[in-house]
């Protein structure tokens, strides 16, 4: 074939693709500038910075009252755990994950199923400390990546769902399992594992996106002879698992991932010391896998306060100087702002009514109160093991510099061996808008229960989220006033709404228990 013919053939293939509407080619350059194509939702957090902010504004404060459901997708398998995956939308196709590890591609305009892929997994897959579900896929070039519950990374053809390759990340027999979304950057796919509550050693891996060959691995807790081992009092470090998603700064070439709690979770007598690098944020060189810096939020955690919340990258002025920042609303109840090039502590403040620390010192280390160590008879502590925030993602609105987080005001009675939750009737939840550079609360929308729903903000001046009784709602981004809600009536829905557009029409989609539902203006 000569060059001209090759070009013609390519043009025909491309034309056929666009006629069907599903081109399904997302090169790295498109991921880098995801904010320029708000009709797509290309990464877990909408962009590498995990802003969960969309530039779409057809749906806005003035017209959101006319938002109506336009389609519902019922999951293929009725049994199993609730849907938790953030949909990825590219070129009119939506990629969802049905628990535990089934990837399904839908027509984003109609909710019709295009293809579905399920891994063959043993019946006795181990996932202690996790749920048998999944947070979503990553897309790069023409491939969709999923971490499976039995701890494999699979690469699927984005157009057909055909398996390109699949590799074992770590042994499921050693309690490693995956529910996290992969992160796809230039030529590589990054993913961590869960299982730290059963002594799985926390790790983060990078794989060649084309071949599945492992490029690097970093462990989050040291072996006996490695730096940080002195913070375990002679014990071998365990836990610190990287069971949620991360963020990426292409200029610094650093990926940012939070780590889980040390194991065993409670008591802590067997592991005296700070237990590095558990309950920390790690900045890791994306090419070499070397740790650039770490910041530990909860030294010597004994409350199961994993620090795997989504790190949000943003640039802002602090004390008159432009800074590259990373913010994280931690499970321990504090909101932190760090310099994302150095890990330096910039600011921090509680975002719930925590009662275990007097505050943070000038390095950001918590000043623990005596009540941090639970009495054998029990100590009432806020937050509970489920935390002030858990895996659900916050949103950052660059237009007003606000950070929207679903906050959980739920205490538990802790003892040295475990905890019991307070009744739901003495707890509540709230969507809270924090000034991103300080953590100061600007407004809140109160809900009767702590919720498990991520937030989404848009250029339409809206914040979308949901509550624990299944109401999906839109708030005024400047005041927190309720502008629209739709009852989806489910207990404990665990959702992450996103927005996209097909044919110029804006949609908002959210899962609830067993369905995905899309909404558009009536």
């Amino acid at each position, binding site marked *: 074939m000569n060059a001209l013919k090759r070009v013609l053939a390519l043009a025909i293939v491309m034309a056929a693709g666009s006629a069907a509407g599903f081109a399904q080619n997302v090169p790295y350059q498109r991921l880098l500038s995801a904010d320029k194509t708000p009709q797509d939702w290309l990464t877990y957090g909408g962009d590498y910075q995990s802003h969960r902010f969309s530039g779409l504004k057809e749906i806005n404060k003035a017209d959101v009252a006319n938002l109506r459901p336009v389609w519902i997708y019922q999951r293929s398998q009725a049994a199993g*755990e*609730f849907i938790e995956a953030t949909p990825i939308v590219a070129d009119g196709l939506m990629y969802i994950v049905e628990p535990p590890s089934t990837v399904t591609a839908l027509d984003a305009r109609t909710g019709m199923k295009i293809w579905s892929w399920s891994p063959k997994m043993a*019946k*006795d*897959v*181990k*996932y*202690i*400390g996790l*749920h*048998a579900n999944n947070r979503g896929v990553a897309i790069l070039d023409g491939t969709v990546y999923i971490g499976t519950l039995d701890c494999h990374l699979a690469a699927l053809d984005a157009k057909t769902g055909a398996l390109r390759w699949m590799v074992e990340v770590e042994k499921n027999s050693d309690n490693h399992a995956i529910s996290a979304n992969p992160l796809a950057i230039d030529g590589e796919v990054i993913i961590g594992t869960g299982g730290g*509550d*059963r002594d799985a050693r926390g790790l983060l891996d990078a794989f060649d996106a084309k071949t599945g060959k492992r490029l690097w691995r970093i462990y989050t807790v040291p072996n006996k002879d490695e730096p940080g081992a002195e913070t375990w009092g002679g014990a071998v470090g365990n836990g610190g698992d990287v069971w949620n998603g991360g963020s990426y700064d292409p200029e610094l070439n650093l990926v940012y991932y939070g780590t889980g709690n040390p194991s*065993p*979770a*409670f008591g802590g007598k067997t592991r005296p010391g700070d237990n590095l690098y558990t309950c920390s944020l790690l900045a890791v060189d994306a090419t070499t896998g070397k740790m650039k810096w770490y910041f530990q939020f909860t030294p010597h955690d004994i409350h199961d306060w994993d620090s795997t919340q989504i790190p949000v990258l943003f640039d802002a002025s602090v004390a008159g100087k432009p800074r590259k920042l990373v913010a994280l609303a931690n499970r321990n109840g504090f909101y932190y702002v760090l310099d994302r090039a150095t890990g330096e502590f910039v600011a921090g403040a509680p975002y719930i009514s925590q009662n275990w620390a007097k505050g943070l010192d000038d390095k950001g280390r918590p000043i623990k109160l005596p009540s941090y160590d639970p009495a054998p008879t029990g100590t009432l502590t806020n937050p*509970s*093991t*489920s935390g002030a925030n*858990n895996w659900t993602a916050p949103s950052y609105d660059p237009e007003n510099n606000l950070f929207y987080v679903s906050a959980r005001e*739920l205490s*538990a009675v802790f*003892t040295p*061996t*475990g*905890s*019991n*939750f*307070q*009744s*739901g*009737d*003495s*707890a509540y939840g709230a969507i809270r808008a924090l000034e991103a550079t300080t953590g100061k609360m600007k407004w809140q929308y*109160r*809900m*009767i*229960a*702590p919720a498990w729903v991520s937030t989404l903000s848009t250029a339409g001046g809206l914040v979308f989220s949901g*509550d*624990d*009784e*299944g*109401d999906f709602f839109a708030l005024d981004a400047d005041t927190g006033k309720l502008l629209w*809600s739709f*009852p989806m009536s489910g*207990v*404990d829905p665990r959702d992450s709404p996103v927005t996209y557009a097909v044919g110029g029409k804006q949609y908002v989609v959210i899962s609830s228990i067993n369905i995905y539902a899309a909404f558009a203006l009536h």
Partner: protein
Amino acid sequence: MIAAAVLIGLFNAAAFAAGDPQGRGPDLSTGKQLFDASCSSCHGQDASGGLGPNIQRIPATLGDEATAKIIKGGVPGTGMPAFAGLTDAQLMQIVAHIRSLGNSAMGDVATGDPEKGQAVYDANGCANCHIVNGVGGNLGPDLTGIGSLRPADFIRLELQNPGGNLPKSPVTGITIGKWTEYLMFRAVTRDGHAIEGMRTAESTLEIVLEDAKGNYHSLHKADLRSLEKESGKSFMPSQTSLSDADLNNLAAYVASLKAAAQ
């Protein structure tokens, strides 16, 4: 068949006493770790109950194999999920741990005569509000099978102080402290109409109350002048007029209501 059942029972007991094929007993520390990770958030650290019921005596009542089967398969229609990923060895470790917890919170303190208790139940109109095996009124909880969940002395306390220890609703999953069931509310509408009732459903914006006559009231919170919780209150009258013996007998009868065969 009865003989076979007895044989199987004996066989299981023998297998339990002998431990695993290597001659070790069940590993209690692993059982505790597993229990703390998977069970304690609902059943409490000492298995005396929380979101889920007290299960301290489940192994003693149902046997180890049946208990393990429940853990593995869950209880459909309740908040008890299936822990299908646990191995048989891990299941037995958990069961052994539950056995080792004993009956720390609730023993069989109250002793009474269930037959005499049934007469007390009938004479005091309990069936006006409670269903047993399909028969009775529906304002209060169905008591069919309650004896599998709650021991006699707990029931006796409930009889004396009905609103004092309301159950929490079961949830699927592991984490949150869910709602108190049968919680009383007093709602006043904008036109001054007061409604007192048990919460049947509630969301951030809405609430459904059931009044003493069993009527549902579906209320939009924004339309109410006030909405107050009445913690500690119950439609059930406190059985203070009963003699000590009658209370014990009634508690013994209610505790004898084990789950009927389906």
